């Protein structure tokens, strides 16, 4: 049983922002409900108002935009993993989306909900960091755009300000010639750990590389320092550099013990996942 609440159905982002401002902590944004309704049933959240944002046209659709793609926050994982454009030009995202929860969670849960919930054990944020994703936030004050990297603050914590909602997620495709790989270790439902890598190989040399790791600490993390260390190295030297980067990884990932694994275990597995993902992406990566 869920505690009774009142359902509000704004038709625009500004109206949703207005309701949020009016009710503040007494309200929760409801899109798919995949995460929210669970918390309500467990009594961890007891909002008096659910602001149903599914009827806001602006939050729907996967659109081509300025050479990239713009994904409405209310688009479900189910639709993302099946979208032809995403599968073809953003296989890293399509792959990660196809692993979220299970078929029912993917059918109900939305990309925006997943990012705003900011559970450290989630799939989409990690590849989106590699793809330099940006988020568009809306409120009664208008909209602002920021890198996803600045949006994710910590465990269940984002840069959303009071009265603000996530409207769209923008991604640009990788230049031609890059390979990508997504590594995911799962023991139960949510990923224990994930790593996303994109690389452009020149023969055996890592000419360009981007890497991100999720689930180890409070949030998914892009790894610019490690990328800098291995850029220009051969694959074997790059793998050695990753294996030797445990201290750096510990510093930037801030590993924590949790029900899915100890901090030390997750750090060990991070090295393995990054190594595997780098090798796969250097061999051309996952196909379309």
């Amino acid at each position, binding site marked *: *049983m*869920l*505690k*009774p*609440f*009142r*359902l509000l159905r704004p038709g625009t982002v500004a109206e949703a922002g207005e309701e949020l401002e009016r009710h503040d902590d007494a309200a929760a944004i409801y899109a798919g*409900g*995949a995460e929210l*309704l*669970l918390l309500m*049933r467990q009594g961890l959240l007891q909002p008096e108002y*659910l602001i149903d944002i599914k009827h806001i046209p602006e939050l729907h659709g996967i659109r081509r935009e300025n050479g990239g793609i713009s994904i409405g926050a209310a688009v479900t994982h*189910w639709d993302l993993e099946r979208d032809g454009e995403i599968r073809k030009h953003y296989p890293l995202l399509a792959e990660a989306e196809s692993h979220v*929860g*299970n*078929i*029912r*969670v993917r*059918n*109900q849960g939305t990309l925006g909900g997943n990012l705003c919930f900011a559970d450290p054990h989630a799939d989409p944020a990690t590849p989106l960091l590699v793809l330099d994703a940006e988020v568009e936030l809306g409120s009664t004050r208008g909209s602002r755009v920021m890198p996803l990297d600045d949006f994710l603050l910590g465990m269940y914590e984002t840069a959303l300000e009071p009265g603000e909602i996530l409207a769209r997620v923008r991604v640009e495709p990788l230049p031609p010639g890059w390979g990508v790989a997504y590594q995911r270790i799962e023991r139960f*439902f949510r990923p224990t750990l994930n790593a996303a890598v994109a690389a452009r190989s020149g023969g055996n040399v890592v000419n360009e590389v981007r890497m991100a790791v999720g689930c180890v600490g409070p949030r998914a993390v892009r790894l610019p320092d490690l990328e800098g260390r291995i850029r220009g190295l051969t694959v074997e030297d790059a793998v050695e550099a990753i294996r030797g980067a445990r201290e750096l990884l510990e510093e930037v990932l801030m590993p924590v013990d949790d029900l899915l694994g100890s901090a030390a275990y997750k750090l060990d597995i991070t090295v393995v996942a990054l190594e595997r993902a780098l090798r796969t992406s250097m061999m051309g990566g996952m196909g379309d």
Partner: protein
Amino acid sequence: MTETLEPVATVQTLPVSISVNGQEWSGEVPVEEVLLDFLRLRLGLTGSKRSCNSEVCGACTVLVDGRPVSACNYLAFEAGGRAVTTVEGLAVDGRLDPIQEAFVDQVAAQCGFCTSGQLMATRALLDENPTPTYDQMAEWLSGNICRCGTYPAIARAIAQVTRATTAEHESIHEEA
């Protein structure tokens, strides 16, 4: 002195029309009512089971417009204007769905508590992909837990259906 307990009052209801197994239901539902309670308590369709109550186990799997949802975590009003299919709606005119027949043939149940969910998830799979590989089948059904461990029998049941589908395709191609 005894205190009288009052039932919790809903604060809001919505008028909805839901097609359930091909039959229309129209009425008011409280916004907080989940689809599983709507089906089991309001309509007496008890084939869908409540088990984990958290979208993980799949025992409450039903189809909404052909797609699988966890009825335990799906608000009933969301089904308004949509078609819900439960295990009670799989058989047509007293004839079992081929998936149900295959589950019987392969004894793909022990206690049977998860079976309606397994059947509905399988129906959705075969509607989207009539000839899944073993890996596709395993990935799709990874969200439907069977604590009796009947997975091999479930896989055999699905294979029985897909073999029939494949044979049908082949015979069509031979004729063409």
